[in-house]
């Protein structure tokens, strides 16, 4: 039940975000799909005891691959899809709790949470970059095979 709930809400939330960012109407469905895939990876890993940071890396990696696939297929900028996917992973909850602890003078907990939020933001970035690197490697290796054939 919770999984169905999560699938539906993550799809709607990601698509709604693209509307806020004035995304193209024809890519709304695909953006929702990207967001849903990313969130489901994160959610399933996280609820099964995988560390939050690692779960975020894997989820953002998946999002980046899915976005690149859609961007190639529909010839649209990749950012439209990746933004929709990334939004649910942004550590809003942790950053909020960190802020709350700061205000309540619980600095130990606050720094703790802030560091965690920073780590998660960093892991989102790492996931994105990883997939970019792999994408470039694939593209370059393809180019080489073409060059070899023509010679």
């Amino acid at each position, binding site marked *: 039940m919770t999984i169905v709930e999560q699938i539906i809400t993550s799809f709607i939330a990601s698509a709604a975000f693209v*509307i806020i960012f004035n995304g193209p109407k024809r*890519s709304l469905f695909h953006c929702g799909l990207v967001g849903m895939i990313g969130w489901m990876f994160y959610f399933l890993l996280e609820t099964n005891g995988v560390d939050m940071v690692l779960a975020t890396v894997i989820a953002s990696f998946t999002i980046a691959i899915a976005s690149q696939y859609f961007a190639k297929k529909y010839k649209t900028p990749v*950012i439209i899809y990746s933004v929709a996917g990334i939004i649910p992973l*942004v550590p809003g909850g942790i950053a909020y709790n960190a*802020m709350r602890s700061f205000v*309540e003078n619980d600095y130990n907990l606050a720094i703790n949470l802030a560091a965690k939020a920073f780590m998660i933001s960093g892991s*989102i970035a790492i996931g994105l970059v990883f997939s970019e690197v792999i994408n470039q490697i694939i593209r370059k290796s393809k180019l080489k095979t073409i060059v070899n054939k023509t010679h």
Partner: protein
Amino acid sequence: MEMAKQETYDIMAVCLLAGKIMLQSGAETYRVEDTMMRIASSFGAYQSHPYVTPTGILFSVEGNEPTKTKLIRIVERTTDLEKVAQVNGISRRISAGEFTIEEAYKELKKIGESGSPYSLWIHVLAAAVSSGCFLIMFQGEWRDFFPAFITGGLGFLSLLYFHQLVPIKFFSEFSASLLIGLQALFFVSTGIGGELDKIIIGSVMPLVPGLLITNAVRDLMAGHLISGLAKGADAFLTAFAIGAGIAVIFSFF
């Protein structure tokens, strides 16, 4: 000679307009530079050097005549992914040789002047719906869906309103998150809402600078250090404004 000179200026005008629209709509720096260079080379200006920062574009074209350089200032930045996609499409068609310089300029001008594809109320509704959905995604209860829906929608509407009132980003974000905190407090104290934290986190999500964070990272990794740092600072400031707004609520209640 005079003709060639004029043509170079025309090419530069098209490139700068395309770059300006993309940058104002929230495209990544490398995409803006790439698009400008592509357009320039498909019109015959093979040596061009765009230098793009979040607040201005420097563009220089080399040719047989002395090098020409232009600078434009970017003041207002919004998020309009539709325009990024449209300019991208135009650039593809220019590369395919479908447009003359004048036609391209006219098409770009049309895109630049076009408004948002969605009306204000659709935006607010989208913010409200996504707030409610985020609440569920962060393991909130269904009875908090309605409070988060209202809080998120009104919070986003107030962000747009305050931004119109005082065009300082920090102020509008701070006030919007303050209002979100107040509304969440109201819902919880009247017993309509259950968990204060979850409602606030869900409703704050439409204000979160997700696009800026992604762009900052991509720019940094692509070697656009100045743009990356500037966008990162922008994202941090937004996050700080949101946090400060909520913090005020907590320090009073």
